[in-house]
């Protein structure tokens, strides 16, 4: 937890300061995302964010649950469930970051 956490100080703080504070949700649209994911640097940055932050968060949720769940079999089932949710969302997210640019650029170009 702590090594991913320390790495995420620059990654996540940088992300929220840039996107939520400096740019802001009003300035973000499909063109913005297409431009961002058209740059290899931001693709790598966002995949690192996705990989580290979601794993850190799901592991944290697992830790919280072990404080409350008394039954070991329920906890085992929840571990499997959390792992599957983590894997599914990580894969669909990473695929979107890697493949979105081509299709998005095509849409933007055909629309203009």
């Amino acid at each position: 937890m702590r090594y991913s956490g320390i790495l995420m100080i620059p990654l996540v703080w940088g992300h929220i300061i840039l996107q939520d504070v400096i740019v802001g949700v009003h300035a973000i649209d499909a063109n913005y995302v297409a431009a961002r994911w058209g740059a290899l640097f931001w693709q790598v940055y966002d995949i690192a964010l996705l990989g580290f932050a979601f794993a850190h968060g799901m592991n944290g949720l697992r830790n919280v649950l072990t404080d409350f769940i008394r039954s070991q079999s329920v906890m085992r089932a929840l571990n499997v469930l959390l792992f599957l949710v983590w894997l599914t969302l990580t894969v669909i997210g990473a695929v979107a970051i890697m493949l979105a640019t081509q299709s998005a650029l095509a849409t933007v170009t055909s629309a203009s």
Partner: protein
Amino acid sequence: MSTLITSLKTSLTGYVRYRGREGHLSFVLHRLTGLGTLLFLTIHIIDMAAFYWAPDFFRAALDLYRTWPYQIGEIALVFAVLFHGANGIRIAVVDMFLPHKWAIQAERNAVRWTLAITLVLWLPAALYMGIRIFNPEFNLFFG
């Protein structure tokens, strides 16, 4: 020993009743900010993945995020991420390099510093984002 530790379970009322002052407060805040951030992160992965998988859903999600309740939530999210990060650094640094700082009085001071640093980072951001809820054109960074 391990059986003893795994059999130690807590309850929600135990979270509220325990009176550990600053250490207790930072523990509860760390969990709440962590779980809150995870909730938004899960939604956020889905809406950004939709940019590729379901573009209409992506646009609908962005429209929703531009409404004022979500923008207030966004300000809270910035607090959650800043506090969780600052408190995480405190825990990791004390645990790895300064174990004597776990003494109660030292920990109370460290928690107060952590809250102060969080507020110094968060208040300007919150003010800026708050003004932008009323005036989306307000922008100090891009002309």
